[in-house]
């Protein structure tokens, strides 16, 4: 009887942040988060830690300290997702994975949706063509950075591909249809709409 009560209590208690991270779909089964000894090897190889306020070791410390304010902290958006930290960690932890999960938690709220809404044309293109493209929102800067040659490439891409003896880069029409159905079935379209709603509310 006592046992049952304890279990019931445990079920009511909300999990701490570290366990929420471990339970996330993005967490590899053997993620060594709880084994972190704060050695700092991750920080020492991390491009974001070298060039911004982001500190890979600190991210893990805050997660282990159950500091949920990290979800709303802009600093999590500085990770490069290069997995260098992941590849050197002596205890099999991965700040890179933890960051992806923290961002997803932020996306469940408005704060994260605002961070990614400028990339939504990638989703639109995928829904239309089953292919990714460079987000429209950044094309202006890219035209400056990449120069006229790149614009010429965009305009003549099909011809260039034909010269190289390559088939069309686009999916077959029936394939586009099943990609679209798959994304509807799995809930991706709903996710896209929710992110766009936040943009439109601004």
């Amino acid at each position, binding site marked *: 009887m006592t046992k049952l009560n304890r279990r019931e209590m445990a079920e009511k208690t909300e999990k701490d942040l570290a366990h929420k991270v471990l339970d996330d779909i993005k967490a590899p089964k053997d993620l060594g988060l709880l084994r972190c000894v704060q050695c700092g090897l991750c920080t020492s190889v991390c*491009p974001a830690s070298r060039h911004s306020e982001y500190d890979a070791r600190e991210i893990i410390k805050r997660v282990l300290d159950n500091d949920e304010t990290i979800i709303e902290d802009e600093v999590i958006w500085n990770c490069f997702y*290069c997995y*260098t930290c992941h590849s050197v960690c002596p205890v099999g932890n991965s700040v890179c994975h933890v960051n992806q999960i923290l961002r997803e938690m932020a996306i469940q709220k408005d704060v*994260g949706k605002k961070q*990614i809404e400028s990339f939504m044309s990638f989703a639109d293109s995928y829904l239309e063509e089953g292919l990714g*493209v460079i987000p429209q929102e950044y094309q202006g800067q890219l035209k400056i950075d990449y120069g006229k040659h790149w614009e010429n490439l965009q305009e003549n*891409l099909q011809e260039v591909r034909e010269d190289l003896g*390559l088939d069309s880069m686009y999916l077959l029409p*029936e394939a586009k249809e099943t990609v679209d159905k798959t994304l509807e079935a799995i809930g991706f379209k709903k996710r896209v709409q929710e992110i766009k709603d936040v943009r439109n509310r601004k």
Partner: protein
Amino acid sequence: MEEIKKFIPTEKITLFRSCLVSAEYPGVEASTKYVFDKLGVEYVIDRNQSCCTGLGHYYDIFDELSTTALAARNFSYAIKNNHKQYVPMCATCYAILKTSAKNLNEKEDVREKINKAFRENGLEEFQYTKGDIDPTNDITHVVDVLYYLKDKIPEHKQRDISGLNIATHHGCHYCKVHYDDTLCGYRNPEVIDKICEVMDSPALKWYDQKPRHCGGGFRQRYANRDLSLDATVDKFLSLHREKIDVLLVMCPNCQVQFDRYQYVLEEKTGDKHYYAVLNIAQLVALYMGADSYKVLGIQTHTVNLEPLLDKLAIEYNPKGDTLHVTEE
């Protein structure tokens, strides 16, 4: 040759298409096909295949479940076609596909959720059965295949490419994500270096920042441009100090970072030094005699390749490039 612990296919391959290769450096696809044909590798390309989602996944636009469901859909075509050996040209596709196969095999709830969505929406044909795809042995990168067949490469030698000062840059998502599956080391990655050796054009044994990231960083390149370029500068300056002729890559995203941004980086650092950026498949194709415009597709590169061809005394017809316009 170092002991290879994973299966590397030479047949029943689906060459997995990459959105960045297709739109930015299509010559990487043409070169891979050219080299595979020379080496007798049997492969197909399937226009039912959708993009792996990788860029969108790492912009945090795609959630894990959607990416995994699309991978299940793609896997089903490869299996149906009896070409289930997926060989991507891009490091991100490689890692995304492996992660998806692991999710589908190891996480029953994920697999069931996806299969249920397929069943309830008339997409039964895409359902995934545990073990359909082995993430280690059924998904290999083009460089794995080239490494495996490297001793056959010199049989097709048409051009001398020795004497180049080459640096290699290995894709992080090839080396570091599923590092147990990486050939020839991931802390000091050397798989591309080993392919260079058989063409008598050895790469620099080491240079400062060698295992470091290109700086692209998915969202960072766009939303955090300065941070992204600051990270690229670390490696860029090291390459300048080494006075390299060529930076060899294995991932189109790294190629964008070092090729498309080369002049931006020169301006940012005030440091100038010409070097070309090539995918390893393009260099092997060049060695095997492929045309610079019709196969390598050098006209799509921001940084002209012609000075490198001059150095190697390789003939070319500059009319093959209609994309670079001379300033008037």
